[in-house]
């Protein structure tokens, strides 16, 4: 059985699966049960300043997007940071940490954007024995209206300033949690690094309206006839998160900055993908909210089976392994030619590939009167849409044309690696050559 233990910015945990700061980590009762179920660590639900706690709407607080069979694909929420008193949270954090020393416990913080507020909160959490802090610069609703959360996370100068205060007034490892509601994720990550952050975590939730009530003409979730935008999370946001993680991992200015990957992690495979793209560990919220704490057991068994199969001795062997293969479009091989190929033994004759290709792509699939579907190599551009819409796994595969063979579509011989930068149709390439 592979060793899943990880050390992330000096914080040790028995596995790389942490619960993200959110309702699952809002109190001692939850966190104890999460540890019992096997979670390697938690980021406690975001704490605010001393004083009267924030007030939530009663509810509904969530909107949802369902897939087939009411599978939860995405949830959006309009909850704020913890609405429980600071002292209660601190007492509970201390009590849990005392009993679960081998698990990671990080405290998420969000206080007003002034030095005294940060100095004060850091002093108050000092003796909890928590392993680190995470700065919530991501919450896109409610708190942002008060100049916190994503209102800070959208201004790199603020991120840098606050991070610097935190590093100045605390010895704890510091993770800066980023909002995806910006145009270029590298800028806030660079700011966090300049401020002295030990790591970044991403993504927080995406600004969203999940649906509209067509009788009351109000966005959902609807509170007494009105709605507001919320934060979107769950499997639907994973592609957005993966790209942002990869951008930070491969950018020269932030390369090597530890990353905690968040956004739609639902199975061991999602976690492994985040890690391959450079995340040292992952955080999970929606999968736990959908299926309960037990999902971590599948994540643990799945990741260890995968690592055993690959011969990875530790998670470090996996982290970042895909980063060198993330490149710019202009460097992709224009001479790489493949053709779709339909396995007739696996084909169930649904015809979805035919509809997709015939109506919307390249008319490269032939259909016989007795519903046999075959690829026309002379038309197939290898877009792989047919493979994507096929309901049977591995029924359609992409076959690579070996170098030296003739592509029946273009009539040209498959040649060596060549990319856009030197392609004759590229005006910039011509300019460079002249």
């Amino acid at each position, binding site marked *: 059985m592979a060793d899943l233990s990880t050390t992330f910015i000096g914080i040790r945990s028995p596995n790389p699966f942490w619960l993200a700061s959110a309702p699952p980590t809002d109190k001692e009762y939850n966190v104890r049960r999460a540890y019992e179920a096997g979670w390697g660590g938690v980021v406690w639900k975001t704490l605010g300043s001393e004083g009267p706690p924030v007030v939530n709407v009663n509810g509904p607080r969530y909107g949802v997007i369902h897939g087939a069979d009411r599978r939860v694909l995405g949830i959006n929420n309009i909850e704020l940071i913890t609405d429980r008193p600071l002292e209660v949270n601190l007492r509970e954090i201390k009590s849990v940490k005392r009993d679960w020393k081998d698990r990671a416990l990080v405290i998420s913080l969000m206080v007003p954007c002034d030095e005294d507020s940060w100095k004060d909160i850091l002093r108050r959490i000092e003796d909890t024995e928590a392993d680190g802090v995470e700065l919530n610069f991501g919450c896109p609703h409610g708190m942002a209206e008060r100049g916190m959360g994503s209102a800070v996370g959208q201004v790199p100068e603020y991120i840098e300033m606050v991070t610097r205060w935190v590093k100045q007034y605390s010895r704890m490892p510091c993770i800066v949690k980023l909002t995806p509601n910006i145009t270029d994720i590298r800028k806030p990550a660079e700011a966090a690094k300049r401020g002295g952050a030990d790591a970044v975590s991403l993504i927080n939730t995406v600004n969203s309206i999940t649906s509209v009530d067509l009788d009351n003409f109000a966005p959902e979730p609807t509170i007494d006839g009105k709605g507001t935008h919320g934060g979107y999370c769950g499997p639907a946001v994973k592609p957005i998160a993966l790209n942002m993680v990869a951008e930070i991992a491969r950018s020269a200015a932030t390369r090597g900055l530890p990353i905690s990957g968040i956004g739609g992690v639902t199975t061991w495979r999602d976690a492994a993908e985040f890690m391959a793209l450079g995340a040292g560990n992952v955080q999970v919220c929606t999968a736990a909210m959908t299926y309960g704490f037990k999902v971590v057991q599948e994540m643990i068994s*799945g990741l260890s*089976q995968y690592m055993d199969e690959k011969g990875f001795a530790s998670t470090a062997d996996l982290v970042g392994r895909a980063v060198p293969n993330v490149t710019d479009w202009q460097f992709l091989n224009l001479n790489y030619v493949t053709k779709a190929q339909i396995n007739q033994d696996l084909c169930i004759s649904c015809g979805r590939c035919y509809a997709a290709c015939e109506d919307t792509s390249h008319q490269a699939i032939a259909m016989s009167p007795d519903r046999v579907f075959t690829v026309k190599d002379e038309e197939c551009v290898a877009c792989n849409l047919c493979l994507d819409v096929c309901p049977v796994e591995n029924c359609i595969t992409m076959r690579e044309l070996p170098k030296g063979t003739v592509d029946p579509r273009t009539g040209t011989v498959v040649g060596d690696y060549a990319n856009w930068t030197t392609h004759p149709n590229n005006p910039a390439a011509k300019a460079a050559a002249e």
Partner: protein
Amino acid sequence: MASTPYASGVVAGRLAPSDYAANFADHAPPLDPHEARVAADRCYFCHDAPCITACPTSIDIPLFIRQIATGTPDAAARTIFQQNIFGGMCARVCPTENLCEGACVRMEAEGNPVEIGALQRFATDPMIARGEHPFTRAAATGKRVAVVGGGPAGLACAHRLAMKGHEVIVHEAREKLGGLNEYGIASYKAPGDFAQAEIDWLLRIGGITVRTASALGRGVTLDALLAEHDAVFLAIGLGGANALGIPGEDAPHVQNAVDFIARLRQTADKAALPIGRDVVVIGGGMTAVDAAVQSKLLGALNVTIVYRRGQDRMSASDVEQNHALTAGVRLITNAVPVEIRADGAVVFEYSVEGGSGSQRTGQTFALPADQVFKAIGQTLALPAGLMAEGRKLGAGHLGGRLWAGGDCAAGGEDLTVTAVAEGRDAAEAIHAALIG
């Protein structure tokens, strides 16, 4: 010249060779990866799932299905084997309609459960086929335990004890291990000698010494076992069969169904097995159904199950009853056997069920029979030196250093999966008693 279904008497080779191959092939072929994925996707990952509660071995079903759905069937197999080392056989023989699948919330939702049994087989088959044992033994404890009976209860107990580091000696009366897995389960449920393959794989844990043809009460005494071991687990199953107690029962064409099935299981070439043209099976349980269906598959022309009470009281499940009916077996209920005539026919008297039990009606009928199989229940064959509590040994701990489980022990239904659960639990109890 081959015989035909119409030939009278008890004869072999009623069918063409290809018919035997088809009839005794896997009656529920394994899921392929695509079917498994579709089936796994239907699981809701229920909290505190009712299927887990319904499984006598409490397998974490939603977890193993999720492990299949996420492409890690070996992890799924480990989840299953942790609770049930006979997860492979149970996937084939459990009456899932009464157990896990009967409790699936999809039954409530649309009357069509997640195919838990088939998914369990999908997960467990490859690991067994590769001969890869998922567990290793704990450090040796120096304790020795004797297990009497090498059926699912005995072997589940032996495996768990070996895992905990104890040394186990299994005494099995027959020539082969397996109990009813080897001698009782219908052939088409576990073809390809799966029972022995599974046991070979199970024994790879190590630390289990097997003594076949070694029976308690024949040379081996309980006192000697207790003197030489730290604990003894009894899992001798039900070795006897109930009798009808009617005239003509001793005729040579009247047999216990379990003996017929055992012979069938041990005969590789089914064409060599003689079977009657007219077969009558008396009883209403799983054994009656298995004897009747397999008679039909051997080429018997007329096979009739006769049960003394109403159909709703039959212990064979609806699925099993339907299986018999689809195989072409005739079912007669509310008929009590009264005599087996010299010409072989069985005479029955109709009964009606009333408030005070069933009443005979005085109306009789006779069914011609070349062969009669009795399937009216098995009984404990008590070896010398043991005391029964009613029809069975006690449940679990019998006192002192003696435990019992499986069919021979009180409590639970007489099913493979229950035997496994009781064997495993006895091992845990023995371990706790020995290690404190």
